[in-house]
């Protein structure tokens, strides 16, 4: 009996000190965290650590925001947050969102749509093969959305964003894909306007080999480490 009580106390202690990762927070608490994070404008971008900590339970709530036209000014935040959670449950809904619009879209919508490859790249950090397949297709110019935005070429836009997505995966598959793009497309990169994207992608991929992901996504990450008053 004594051993039983000791084991019970140990189990309770493990659960208590493990915090919210084991003890499920209430839906209202999660929704409040999502609302505070996503339904606000962030001058330096959504906080990666805060978004990542929401966990996969946040995905259904975030997807509801993407279906609410009245919240479209926060759609880009929602897409980024779905990416920062880095869970494959968000992959298919994000790709569906990319193809959900037809015709000319507005500024707020195009921000969110064009952010999908970046979000998929973040999901690809977990090695998801479907995510890499999407990004390779995109970087090769095979994404054909039904929407337009002024004089912008959406295929070229998404190709560049997909190159960035491959980079922010921080995964060897992403770097290998970038290598293939440069080798296979060569001079075409300059003509297609993708060279500047590939250069930036290379820089991001290189940094991700040695720095934490938060340092790439939030410019104030290093500053906050020192908690400047």
């Amino acid at each position, binding site marked *: 009996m004594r051993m039983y009580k000791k084991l019970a106390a140990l189990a309770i202690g493990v659960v208590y000190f493990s915090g919210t990762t084991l003890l499920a927070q209430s839906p209202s608490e999660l929704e409040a965290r999502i609302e505070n994070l996503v339904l*606000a*404008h*962030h*001058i*330096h*971008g*959504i*906080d*990666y650590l805060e978004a990542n900590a929401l966990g996969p339970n946040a995905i259904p709530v975030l997807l509801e925001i993407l279906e609410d036209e009245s919240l479209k*000014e926060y759609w*880009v*935040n929602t*897409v*980024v947050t779905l990416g920062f959670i880095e869970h494959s449950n968000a992959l298919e809904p994000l790709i569906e969102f990319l193809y959900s619009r037809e015709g000319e879209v507005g*500024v*707020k919508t*195009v*921000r969110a749509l*064009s*952010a999908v490859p*970046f*979000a998929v790249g973040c999901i690809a950090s977990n090695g998801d093969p479907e995510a890499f397949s999407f990004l390779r297709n995109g970087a090769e110019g095979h994404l054909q959305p039904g929407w337009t*935005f*002024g*004089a*912008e*070429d959406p295929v*070229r*836009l998404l190709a*560049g*964003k997909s190159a*960035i997505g491959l980079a*922010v995966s921080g995964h060897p598959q992403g770097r290998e894909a970038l290598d293939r793009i440069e080798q296979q497309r060569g001079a075409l990169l300059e003509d297609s*306007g993708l060279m*500047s*994207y590939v*250069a*930036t992608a290379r*820089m*991001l991929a290189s*940094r991700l080999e040695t720095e934490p992901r938060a*340092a*790439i*996504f*939030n*410019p*104030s990450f290093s*500053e*906050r480490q020192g*908690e*400047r*008053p």
Partner: protein
Amino acid sequence: MRIFSLVAFALLLELLLGPPSAAFAQTQNMTSWQVTRHVDTPLTQAALNVAFEDANRKVRLDNEHCSDRPCQLNIVQLGELGTYGSAGDGGAFIDNESRLEAAFNAPGRVSVVTSIGYCGGEYNESIIGCGQCSGGNFVVEADSGGHVYVHEFGHNQQDLLDCGHRNSCDNNIMRWQINSQSDALTTSECSMLTGINAHEWCGEMIMLSEPEWFNWVTCPIYLPPDGPWNGLFVTKPFDEWQFRSGMTLTSNGEFSTPGGLVYMYSNSREKDLPGLRLLENGRLGIKNGGQIRFD
């Protein structure tokens, strides 16, 4: 005691939007920004006016939540809204170093684009502003509020937080994350933004001789009926008085301006601020110890 309540006239909007008179301009600190948009970024002059109005309000009003100081800085647009880039060149989306450089090299201080995903070596598709550290340019997304313009302008200023942020209070305009409520500036930040800090009036009895032209009233003003002033408060034309919410003007006399506009308003956070404007040779009488309370 009779209490008078102010009726909202939206005079502050007129103050901020109307072109300053020559005299007003001479006594104000002004910063002029030339603004260009990427040719593929939709932005109207009317929308830009709203952003500038918001920026002016943000720096000039006291934020009672955080340690803040009203900052007299008139942010005006230099010239007409221009464009840069060419149609379909992709430059409306700042998502790589090359396009960021193009935006910074566009004519003027402010470049407005459709989307910012890349800034200073970092990548995040939800970024909405990017400023050159101790430089002459900043980039904002179309439909950004005035707080974004002021924040990025802050990064342009040499020595202002070493291009960093001040995170001591939620509504600091130089906090690393800001929102539409962000408008708190310190006196040094105001100075570095090329503004003038408001002269603070506080005290139960104020004998006014030569008031500063930009006054921030943090304690009630009492005009004594007796003595050299005989209850009469005279201020200079184009002086500006900002009353912290809840402050009062108590007198048994008159408040007047001899020959020009004087603006008095509460720093209420409401959009259409209640204000009082004494026109040329205007006089406002308060009798029997009455009060004007600025809410």
